[in-house]
């Protein structure tokens, strides 16, 4: 027996390729959508991986430092380090802001890292070029995605930094590339007041008789110094000693230091379950709509292709073709259309993914699921056409 579906496709290949490509673009969008979601999850995981931390110590009752703002005193890390099971504890600041690059600016997450050695929590784990920060001020390590190159000068607030090293795929949970600067500089950037604000506050403090006492001139200086200084960071990253569980280490810090402590699993839960949850639902809705639209379009195309063949189907029935054979022909064509669409869509998504501003991660399991969904949709879509074909009266063919 010859393949009726195959012969018809060969005969009208232009129509099939054309509709297949159209369908493919739709499938491509769907796959890319799934990739956008995967990319968001991956951004979150990459952020946690690259931080090199086992525990995040943040302000009490906050979901900091990524999902909510958090500030803890910058001298607290010493006592955290002294807690049992803690191997390293370092300050860190995160601030998402616009960083000037020449005449334009890029959105980036500025990370303040403590002076120390590479490999400490918070430090970029590996560079693709240049070196790590060695000086306490005005050096920066930037992610390639910021567009900076080694030797470039970038401005954060009032200060200028020279880029000495480059990273790849160091991003915040919302996909903004990171710029690492020394902690002191970052603290200044985050909590820095502009000159006018400082002057205003100084004037107010001076005018306050409680601080400006005639008998104690040093008091005013001390108060002003404490107001201008910035002694907060966003979180303390903790690495635990081998042999301790995160639970064992986190519990005493929570109890004694009155801080909130998250381990890796909890942090992932916050990033994926809370920070990107709305976006994920948004994408989920899109996926549902796209799937429904694709299904409707496949159904419509298959229906139209079958309508065009009513005559032939009637003749096939007239010469004794079984319903099974006719149904198989329509189903096979529907599936071929789906396969063409899937291949086109997969190729389109693969080529389009790098062009997106944020990370689009195409994972094989999504492709497999997508393929199965396409097959399912095509099968369902052909049901309508098959039902119609089986109702055709052979007598109609010969009018």
């Amino acid at each position, binding site marked *: 027996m*010859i393949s009726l579906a195959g012969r018809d496709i060969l005969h009208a290949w232009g129509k099939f390729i054309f509709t297949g490509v159209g369908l493919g673009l739709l499938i491509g969008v769907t796959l890319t959508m799934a990739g956008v979601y995967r990319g968001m999850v991956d951004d979150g995981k990459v952020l946690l991986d690259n931080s090199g931390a086992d525990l995040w110590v943040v302000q009490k009752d906050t979901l900091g430092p990524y999902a909510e703002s958090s500030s803890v005193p910058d001298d607290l890390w010493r006592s955290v380090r002294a807690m049992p099971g803690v191997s390293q504890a370092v300050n860190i600041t995160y601030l998402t802001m616009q960083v000037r690059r020449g005449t334009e600016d890029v959105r980036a997450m500025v990370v303040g890292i403590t002076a120390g050695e590479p490999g400490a929590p918070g430090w970029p784990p590996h560079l693709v070029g240049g070196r790590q920060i060695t000086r306490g001020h005005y050096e920066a390590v930037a992610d390639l995605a910021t567009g900076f190159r080694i030797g470039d000068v970038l401005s954060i607030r009032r200060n200028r930094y020279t880029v000495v090293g480059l990273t790849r795929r160091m991003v915040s949970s919302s996909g903004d590339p990171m710029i690492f600067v020394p902690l002191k500089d970052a603290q200044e950037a985050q909590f820095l007041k502009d000159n006018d604000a400082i002057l205003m506050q100084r004037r107010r403090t001076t005018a306050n008789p409680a601080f400006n006492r005639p008998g104690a001139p040093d008091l005013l200086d001390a108060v002003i110094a404490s107001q201008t200084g910035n002694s907060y960071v966003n979180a303390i990253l903790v690495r635990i000693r081998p042999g301790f569980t995160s639970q064992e280490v986190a519990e005493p810090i929570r109890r004694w230091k009155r801080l909130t402590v998250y381990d890796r699993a909890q942090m992932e839960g916050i990033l994926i379950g809370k920070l990107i949850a709305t976006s994920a639902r948004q994408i989920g809705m899109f996926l549902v709509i796209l799937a429904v639209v694709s299904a409707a379009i496949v159904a419509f195309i298959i229906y139209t292709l079958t309508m065009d063949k009513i005559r*032939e189907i009637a*003749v096939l*029935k*007239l010469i004794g073709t079984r319903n099974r054979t006719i149904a198989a022909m329509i189903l096979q064509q529907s599936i071929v259309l789906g396969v063409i669409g899937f291949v086109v869509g997969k190729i389109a998504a693969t080529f389009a993914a790098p062009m997106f501003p944020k990370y689009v991660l195409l994972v094989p399991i999504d492709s497999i699921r997508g393929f199965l969904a396409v097959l399912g949709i095509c099968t369902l879509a052909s049901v309508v056409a098959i039902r119609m074909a089986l109702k055709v009266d052979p007598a109609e063919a010969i009018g």
Partner: protein
Amino acid sequence: MGTRGIRIEKLSKRFGEGDTAVLALKNVNMQVAPGEVVGLIGPSGSGKSTLLKCLGAVIDPTSGRMTLDDTVIYDDGWKVRDLRALRRDKIGFVFQAPYLIPFLDATDNVALLPMLAGVPNEDARRRALELLTALDVQHRARAMPSQLSGGEQQRVAIARGLVNRPPVILADEPTAPLDSERAMAVVRILNDMARRFETAIIVVTHDEKIIPTFRRIYHIRDGVTHEEAGEGRDFERPLHAVAAS
């Protein structure tokens, strides 16, 4: 009582209901023996196609009785469950227009029938090609229907009607678009089939060239038939003999 061939008794067919009803066949009686080719002639609208369609299980008669190849297929209602299988296995139909499958070439349009009956592709194609050769279209065997002339399409359609060597062949104006030489070839092949495979054949025609070749003719007018003897004139020597198999 066994009746090989075709037997039609009191067959009626009414189209529509009430005032607009058309009585296309009125108590038609007809009998065709195995190995016999009979002509069915009558003016346009007299009910010729309707008769063939009823007999070919394409449309439902209104009443009467039809027997095909020893089987009562209709007796005031269909007596066969699978009409499609009946058409495939018992009846070769040549319609008034070719109705070829546009996405199959000439050979496969013919070979599809034996393939549907389970004959291997190569055997089916060989049988198809033999018939196309006998009908003088073997040179267009690989052409698609849209590339064939009307007469070529008609000959492919005739080959399709004959290829399964059914016990009954119903041909509705098979020679209308053909020149006299090729029309004669068709008549020759039909007679050859009838003789060799004991086929009962009804040929509807207006074609003056072929009417004299029938030994028996049914005339039909306003849905009523009457039988008369034909001339049974001999036809010239074959163009190509039907390959024996």
